[in-house]
């Protein structure tokens, strides 16, 4: 039995390699940095990159699940803003200051529940009302951030709350907490996809929805499930961003995150038509996108040019994927 398991992981590692050349790209970027970027292999650099990458990766993993069913979720950035706006409101409230521990616990739990509810809304629109995912999630994309801004009156909420900030600044074994969190989530989601009926149905629905339904797959439930997971992960990422900054800015939190997440998922090997859920690929994609950004920045290239580079990466990644299929 252990033989077969290692065989499978060995094979999937190979598939990752052949799959999208992402690893090759990553190695190339690392080599480039080793040669040209000053101070690249320093702990500080590592910390900066890990804490940046973790939020993208967490959202991208949720996005990967949604894309695996053939869907898309444009609302993740708005959900981040919403969750991020709620948290300080809760622990800065009278109740939150009176019971600090409970306050922080609620400041994490309630926004996540709200994010879950947003995912539920998206899921119902897609699975029950058969609205195309782009349009269904466009609703929350437009209004979600608006709600966050209404809640905070558009103000920047700054705070000092070490317990809550642990989400974004804490360290375990010297590495940022959210990095560990992202890895833990990845492991859990990987097991969900490869070992559970839910995961199998996710891939089956993306691969052929009609066949999945006719084989008794609970299509609507599974779809609602992935949108809820995606929403909850976006909410978590929103909390982390707020914790990193010790401030919540509803206008900027998670802005354009949907694009980064989709890009990371696609670079990581997700197929837009569904049927594939490379969870670790999503992390790889997030790392590549972050490292390219960092490399350009560290070598004095403007932030704007990094956008063009990101565009190039996405095109190349998808083109390679497409070419391989034919």
């Amino acid at each position, binding site marked *: *039995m252990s033989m077969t398991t290692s065989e499978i992981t060995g094979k999937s590692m190979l598939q990752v390699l052949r799959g999208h050349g992402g690893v090759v790209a990553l190695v190339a970027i690392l080599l480039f940095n080793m040669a040209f970027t000053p101070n690249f292999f320093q702990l500080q650099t590592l910390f900066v990159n890990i804490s940046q990458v973790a939020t993208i990766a967490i959202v991208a993993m949720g996005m990967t699940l949604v894309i695996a069913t053939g869907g898309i979720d444009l609302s993740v950035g708005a959900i981040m803003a919403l969750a991020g706006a709620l948290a300080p409101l809760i622990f800065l409230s009278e109740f939150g200051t009176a019971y600090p521990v409970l306050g922080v616990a609620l400041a994490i739990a309630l926004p996540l529940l709200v994010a879950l509810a947003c995912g539920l809304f998206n899921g119902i629109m897609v699975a029950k009302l058969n609205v195309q995912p782009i349009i269904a999630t466009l609703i929350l994309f437009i209004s979600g951030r608006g709600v966050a801004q209404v809640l905070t009156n558009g103000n920047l909420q700054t705070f000092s709350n070490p317990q809550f900030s642990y989400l974004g600044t804490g360290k375990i074994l010297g590495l940022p907490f959210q990095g560990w969190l992202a890895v833990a989530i990845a492991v859990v989601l990987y097991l969900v996809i490869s070992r559970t009926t839910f995961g*199998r149905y996710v*891939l089956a629905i993306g691969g052929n929805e009609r066949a999945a339904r006719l*084989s*008794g797959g609970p299509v609507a439930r599974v779809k609602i499930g992935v949108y809820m997971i995606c929403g909850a992960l976006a909410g978590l990422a929103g909390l982390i961003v707020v914790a990193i900054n010790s401030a919540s800015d509803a206008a900027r939190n998670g802005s354009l995150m949907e694009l980064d997440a989709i890009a990371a998922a696609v670079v990581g090997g997700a197929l837009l038509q569904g*049927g594939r859920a490379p969870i670790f690929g999503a992390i790889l994609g997030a790392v590549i996108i972050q490292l390219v950004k960092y490399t350009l920045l560290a070598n004095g290239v403007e932030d704007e040019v990094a956008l063009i580079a990101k565009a190039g990466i996405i095109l190349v990644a998808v083109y390679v994927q497409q070419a391989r299929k034919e």
Partner: protein
Amino acid sequence: MTVLLEMNAIQKAFNGVPALAGASVEIERGEVHALIGQNGAGKSTMIKVLTGVYRRDDGQISFNGQDSVLTNPREAQAAGIATIYQELTLVPLRSVTENVMMGYEPKRFGAFIDWSAAHARTREILTRFGIDIDVKMPLGTYSTAIQQLVAIARAVSLDAKLVIMDEPTSSLDTSEVKTLFGVVRSLRDAGVSVLYVSHFLDELFEICDRVTTMRDGKTVGCVKLAETTKLDLIAGMLGRASSDIAAAGMTEFGGGAAKKGEILLEAKDVATGPRLSKFDMSLHRGEIVGLGGLLGAGRTEAARALFGVDALRSGSITLKGAAAPSQPADAISAGLGYLTEDRKAEGIIPDMSVRENLTLALLPRMTKGGQIDRAREREIVQHYIDALDIKTADMEQPIRELSGGNQQKVLLARWLAIEPDILILDEPTRGVDIGAKREIQLIIRDYVDRGYSVVLISSEFEELVEGADRIVVLNEGRCVTELTNPGITEHKLVQALAHTNEAIV
């Protein structure tokens, strides 16, 4: 007569797998030429090579006295080759006029479409076919038969020298077929050639002059229809001596003596929509009930109703005395299985492995606390790969890489694995090679012999006649009669289909 088209020693391979290996066909001017062969014999590939959809690897094509180097369908149309494909290749959302005129619209000032002229011309063309419909309505609002005739009307209106018809009658009723044959004859009289692809052999004798038979990507013969027999044609397609077939029967079903058990499934006055308006049947344990009928008779709709895919508008279905399930998941847990007709659209999940495809319906029963019991999964999959002799590198191979017959066996295994009391099989042997076909028939027979029941839909009359204990015959969404074995012959079944309005005893 002179030769219009000559295709000689055509070679075409896909990913190294040859689809055509030296196929030839020759058509004269004003000839109706039939092209026949089993599924996978290479007929469709041959047509697509001719019309420029595929590029040939080798061989010569000469059309109208010139070497033909067509590279896309538009050039083929311009050269005078019009094609009506097997799958409807029109745009249902757009109007009838647009579908007929698309690409050849009458213009004003050289740029703007003259809609009144377009509508008028479309009406005129359709009138020739005896169709009188509102040409401004979306094509999709009309029946499949009308859509088929519109496709033919489009092709014919393009002043073609050669009209290719790929299974044109499969969705037409008797009177529509007559209309079509009238059109074919008038084309022939006008000196237009027709390449007629069909598996309804009786039609060929009625309408065609010569027939080319293909097998395994090769041409096996070209004869005048007046000088051959149906049995010889079948023998040519199968590659066996005709005397063997006459003696041994066409299928592996071999009459199962009906040993009826209790009634498992009963449908009364079931209607789900315009395509299924009155469906009655009962199914006993250990019995195969066939659903007979032509395409569009409502057989697939009946299967969907039984499996809880389509909601009932009226009537009732009882399963083992209880109310029938209202969705597939419930149907499966109630002991039903449904092998769908369209393997690609409703069966396989192409990128998933053989293992994952095989256990899809079984998942709920292989799960402990949401987690798949992977050891048991592999055990079950291996069992069925061995039992059904599924040819696959290993169980992790993506199912899309398997041949059609082996894909079908995996899907069959998907349903056998849940051991349903009742298995609904919609065209279980369509599009698989002859060897796999026989194997699948044996598997079904064996399953029934073990005390399970089967509802069998098949367009191949031999399969129904020899396989089913009873045949419920459908026409236009209604049950018209029921035949009981032993005693059913192909002749009787055809009669039942032909005389659908009269009571047959």
